[in-house]
């Protein structure tokens, strides 16, 4: 088992990458940290921490309306982060990049801002059974508020969308919006978003893509996806918490109502009426996550510097290795598709041991995995489980950490036999 099947290819040396992450200098339960929970949140490289500290120490002020030097510098840094983000997702224009609190806020902004104005009785709002609750509950709720129908594209036993069911689910209704994740946060399944977007557009719908689990792991090109809105969150891409991104096609954003109201998002306010600022500022009410934007830009530069293709290759090698090692554990069942159709996320169940107990047992060895429904209750119901244990990998993950997980799983089986 200690046989190391993954060798670093030119471009990504995970051991060198780890030296950038201070967290790995601190043991857990007396053992080196094996952090296999990057799908929940990624650890932070020194480059991101330094960028934020440097910004706070040398350039910090509130942005947009200050006329003094420091406010100018802070505004420049914030808008430069928007441009970095634009380039990262290959958006046509920086004005299509809205900074939000996280991907949940991005999706809610569309659900309220676009959904409330555009859904009505006889319309269908369509999600999928594998959506994270953040790309499911807002649509279900706003559909209910507007009298529209809500449905979900089913998932098959392998954890992939049943595309053959699309027309059946539609059932002749007027499709207004398709909400779909690019990558399943529980199973790692990579969805055929361009194909789904084409289908939805043929029916006249708007397409919203949750890219929270895609952005960290493969090159994200919003134009290639063919969507109208794409959201992702900073903290999963090695950036800070408190910042997310909503990309929207300019012509759709221009027609969308603001969701959060307040300072900065206005053009003119009188007692009689208020008019909105131009995009993207219309959607950025209140003091923005300024230092977080700076940190996000540093994180995007960091992962781009290492290379999304190199990260993708590293993770797919790890995933293949993990699936092979896990298959050797007695009583273990892995959910989801084969390695070539998923990112580095592996959910499994261990017969006779609840995922929470699994996670606690491996934690004693310093191995961090997540246990629960992963905000995927409809998917868990489809898989017939209440919860799973999930291991997820990133650019700093080593194959021996997967070995340590497997050792812990064998131990858990023994304990509960």
């Amino acid at each position: 088992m200690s046989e190391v099947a993954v060798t670093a290819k030119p471009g990504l040396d995970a051991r060198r990458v780890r030296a950038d992450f201070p967290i790995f200098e601190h043991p857990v339960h007396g053992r080196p940290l094996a952090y296999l929970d990057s799908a929940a949140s990624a650890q932070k490289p020194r480059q991101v921490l330094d960028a934020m500290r440097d910004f706070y120490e040398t350039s910090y002020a509130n942005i947009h309306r200050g006329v003094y030097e420091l406010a100018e510098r802070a505004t420049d840094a914030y808008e430069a982060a928007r441009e970095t983000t634009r380039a990262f997702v290959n958006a046509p224009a920086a004005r299509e990049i809205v900074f939000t609190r996280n991907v949940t806020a991005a999706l809610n902004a569309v659900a309220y801002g676009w959904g409330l104005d555009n859904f009505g009785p006889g319309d269908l709002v369509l999600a999928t059974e594998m959506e994270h609750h953040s790309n499911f509950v807002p649509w279900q709720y706003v559909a209910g508020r507007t009298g529209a129908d809500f449905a979900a594209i089913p998932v098959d036993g392998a954890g992939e969308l049943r595309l053959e069911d699309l027309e059946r689910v539609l059932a002749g209704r007027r499709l207004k919006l398709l909400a779909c994740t690019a990558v399943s946060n529980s199973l790692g399944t990579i969805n055929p978003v361009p194909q789904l977007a084409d289908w939805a557009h043929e029916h006249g719908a708007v397409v919203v893509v949750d890219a929270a689990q895609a952005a960290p792991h493969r090159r994200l090109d919003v134009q290639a996806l063919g969507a109208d809105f794409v959201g992702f969150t900073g903290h999963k891409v090695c950036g800070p918490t408190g910042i997310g991104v909503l990309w929207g096609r300019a012509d759709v954003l221009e027609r969308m109502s603001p969701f959060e109201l307040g300072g900065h998002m206005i053009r003119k306010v009188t007692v009689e009426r208020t008019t909105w600022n131009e995009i993207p500022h219309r959607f950025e009410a209140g003091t923005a996550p300024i230092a977080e934007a700076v940190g996000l830009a540093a994180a995007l530069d960091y992962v781009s510097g290492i290379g999304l293709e190199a990260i993708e290759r590293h993770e797919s090698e790890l995933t293949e290795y993990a699936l092979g090692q896990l298959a050797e554990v007695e009583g273990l069942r892995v959910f989801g598709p084969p390695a070539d159709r998923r990112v580095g996320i592996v959910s499994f169940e261990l017969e006779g041991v609840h995922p929470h107990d699994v996670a606690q047992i491996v934690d004693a060895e310093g191995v961090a995995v997540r246990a629960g429904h992963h905000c995927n209750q409809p998917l868990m119901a489809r898989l017939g489980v209440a919860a799973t244990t999930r291991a997820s990998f990133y650019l700093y993950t080593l194959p021996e950490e997967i070995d340590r997980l497997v050792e812990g799983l064998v131990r858990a089986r023994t304990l509960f036999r």
Partner: protein
Amino acid sequence: MSELDSLYREVILDHFKNPRGHGVIADPDAQAEGQNPLCGDEVAIMVEFDGDTISDVKFQGRGCAISQAATSMLMDMVKGRTADEVASMSRDELLDEVGIPLTPVRLKCALLGLGVLKVALHKGKGTPLPEEWAGLDELDLR
């Protein structure tokens, strides 16, 4: 003894593998169910009264070892006691019996059964729901 061995000590694993009071009561006087959304633990409890005394109590559920073992221990503890006594039973009384160190997350697992039982007693006998019961809003009170 390592931290892990103390957490999954023999008595916990025994209650998990051989739960006491597991099953159903036909036509119970009161019942309630609840979930722990953090890990998807589920517990349903049925109670039969003889006057104000709990003459029989049974549970069904699925979930982690801590939640199911603690509920199993609870069944042993409450049979023969009055609804009022159990409604005012402190969480520490159960936690002493469980007897293992628990993080805040696992505390929710261990206390799920007690919360569900108190809801059942509330529904059956009108006993108060403890204000300090942190999981109350997660429970089905209908």
